[in-house]
């Protein structure tokens, strides 16, 4: 999709790194190389498993950002949508603790999606109908979600059970790779599938073509009879649902409980993954994996105790990498041309 040479190269570098990582992972986990602690920290199954788990909410959050921004709505409120989804999933799960586990969990997912979509609707309404500055609107979403969830959160409530891993037959038996990729809980699979779905949707379907036109040149879309604001509402809600799902993942799959402010900046890192990935789903996946890997590394380094560096510095790792990655790439990536601009029809241009 990109003809920019820099980005083309980046794609190749990312692919090469991924291949190298897989090769190293297989070697470290099957041969004597596994005896070197450093290599185990960097490429062990547990590090890579952690990477995947850490990157799921980032991928979903980044997809949320892509859907909104590709249609022309800036969404810095991903963090808030995620948190709202997490809290909603928790409430739904607690309320249905008496149901069979799977039904209760699926209900939690559905509510997380719905509440995320509602947050998206709120953001779209504020920014389209009331023409609020979209940065401000996004900030409102974050504060609203943080405040409301903290206020309503009952510390005594306990959610019982969470999604467990599902083995994909045959694939799960592949050494190392099967262990990392094919023995995961359902939302993880769903997130990976959604990357493909959003990519195909954006670039190969009518909906995607029209959505991108709304984000790049809304007037052009309007002159061929496309209702720009309808697409913006729709996609902001779809995006919100994905952010809600990211929140659902945290509660229903990763942690099993809710904690105040449990998204801990993941929405913002998602935003960075979206930018780093040049508003492309696979780019975002690569960026989210990188950020997830730094979180895993932080974890593994602390556990293995292989370094004398103060733990505070190690804890900074994911954030430092995020800043470096994004600041190194801003200027090389190209955001949708019309993002953040309200589109008004009649009489707006003569």
């Amino acid at each position, binding site marked *: 999709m990109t*003809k920019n040479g820099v980005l083309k190269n980046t794609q190749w570098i990312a692919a090469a790194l991924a291949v190298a990582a897989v090769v190293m992972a297989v070697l470290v986990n099957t041969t004597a190389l596994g005896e070197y602690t450093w290599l185990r920290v960097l490429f062990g199954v547990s590090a890579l498993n952690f990477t995947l788990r850490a990157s799921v909410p980032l991928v979903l959050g980044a997809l949320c950002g892509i859907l909104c921004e590709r249609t022309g709505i800036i969404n810095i409120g991903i963090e808030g949508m995620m948190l709202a989804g997490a809290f909603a999933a928790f409430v739904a799960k607690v309320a249905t603790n008496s149901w069979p586990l799977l039904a209760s969990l699926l209900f939690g997912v559905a509510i997380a999606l719905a509440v995320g979509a509602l947050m998206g609707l709120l953001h779209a309404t504020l920014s389209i109908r009331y023409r609020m500055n979209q940065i401000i609107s996004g900030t409102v979403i974050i504060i609203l979600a943080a405040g409301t969830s903290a206020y309503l959160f009952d510390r005594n409530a306990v959610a019982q059970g969470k999604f467990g891993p599902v083995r994909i037959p045959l694939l799960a038996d592949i050494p190392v790779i099967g262990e990392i990729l094919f023995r995961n809980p359902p939302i993880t699979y769903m997130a990976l599938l959604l990357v493909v779905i959003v990519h*195909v949707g954006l670039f*190969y*379907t*009518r909906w995607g*073509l*029209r959505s*991108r*036109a709304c984000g*790049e*040149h809304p*007037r*052009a*879309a*309007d*002159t*061929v*009879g*496309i*209702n720009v604001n309808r697409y913006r509402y729709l996609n902001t809600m779809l995006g919100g649902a994905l952010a809600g799902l990211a929140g659902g993942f945290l509660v229903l799959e990763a942690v099993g409980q809710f904690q105040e402010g449990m998204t801990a900046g993941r929405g913002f890192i998602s935003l960075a993954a979206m930018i780093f990935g040049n508003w492309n789903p696979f780019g975002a996946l690569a960026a989210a994996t990188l950020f997830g890997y730094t979180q895993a590394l932080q974890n593994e380094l602390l556990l293995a105790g292989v370094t004398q560096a103060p733990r505070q510095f190690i804890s900074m790792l994911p954030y430092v990498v995020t800043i470096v990655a994004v600041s190194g790439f801003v200027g090389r990536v*190209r955001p949708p*041309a019309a993002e953040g601009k309200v589109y008004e*029809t*009649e*009489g707006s241009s*003569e």
Partner: protein
Amino acid sequence: MPVLEARHITKRFPGVVANEDVNLKLYPGEILALLGENGAGKSTLMNIVYGLYKPTEGEIVVRGRPVEMSNPNDAIRLGIGMVFQHFQLVPVMTVAENVMLGSETIKRGLLDTQQVAARIEELSQRYGLAVNPYAMVEDLPVGVRQRVEIVKTLYRNADILILDEPTAVLTPQEIDGLFDVMELLRSQGKSIIFITHKLKEVLRISDRIMVLRDGKVVGEADPKTATQSTLAAMMVGREVILTIDKDEAQPGPVILDMQEVSAQDDHGQPALRNVSLQVCAGEIVGVAGVQGNGQTELVEVLTGLRSHDSGRIAINGLDMTNASPRRVTQDGQSCHVPEDRHAYGMVDAYTVAHNLVLNTYFQPPFANGLTVNEQAIRRHAEDLVKRYDVRTPSVLVHAANLSGGNQQKMVVAREFSRPVKLLIAAQPTRGIDVGSIEFIHQQIVAKRDEGAAVLLVSAELDEIMALSDRIAVMYKGEIVDIVPRSQATREGLGLLMAGARSEEPAPVTGEAG
């Protein structure tokens, strides 16, 4: 039976009547020219026909049936297609994606790009509109983008085509190409509404002319009997002087002195090759040439916007070799009407008043130490707006809201109102209405008569011929010849523009294009 009819259309915007009781008939297989100045209501009328605006009163009748249109979809379904003055293309998408947008062909749930591309190729061949369906629009030159727009309407099976100021952005060669396409379309039974304010083009291509002024139809004209001056009078509402009255130049000392200047374009290719040129006080030197032969770079080098590799420039006896724009305007006492007013001449988001002090705001009386004196700026603006006939409701409105002609008059007002020794005007009348053109031409001549040296760069040969005292012709970055106006002929200049030197026998086919 007319294929399209507008009956008693009135359109009111808050505070403005854009169209008043407009009647229009378009017959199958004809080119109807809709002529009018900027702001006469041509575009509003066409936006109504295309379903983008709803008329306050009146109705649109298509093939004898009154129609309600609530958005462009309805117009597209009725076979109406519109090519906008500002192209409605998504730069980062391919031609095929742009063409199918809104009318996609779907196969198994996915976009069928191949089929769309095949259809585009078929249309390109049939109507002589060469486009590559897989090219990115952002990589295409303006002329090709326009072809994409036309293909877009044909792809939707439009048989009523509205072309809004299609020639404003084209070179003479591209205009010829467009007219060929229009004639081909007409011969295949399509009806075309051609919106323009260029008189010569109207007479050349149209079958019927309708003139709009202040939102009303002022009359129809037959291109066989009408002349440029009768049309101009209808359009402006008064007699317009199309020829410029001026006395013989009284050249004084050399003001601008360029010696052997060479410079590169944005892509690092040589754009100016050893250009030497002198302009004296009290004369207008016109620079003629097909666009893209170094004129843009010449002006940029002279105004300090582009650095040059070799050679010397002096203005008013001061060395201005690679000088900064501020030094050129201040010490060189020169002013510049840039070729692209939106990019270099004005700040759209500033008020008219602020735009009028863009090059003087830091001097008294506009500057008070660290702050600016808004009142002085405003008084200054009100004075200039009056003197230069800039039509604006107030000097505090944003410049973006003015019509093109008034924006240009605003730029001219700012530049011409200072006492200057050198005036550099690049395409000073591009894309603006006859009334404003007349006014700006008079101002340029007045500046000459005050003793300024004037360098006029224009792609319009008529403008060069009408204003200049000497004419320099550029070809591939060189000045091929400089001829006094009295010895210049259209044919001779045309040959020079194609690269022939006057001493040499002239080759018949040039590379101009």
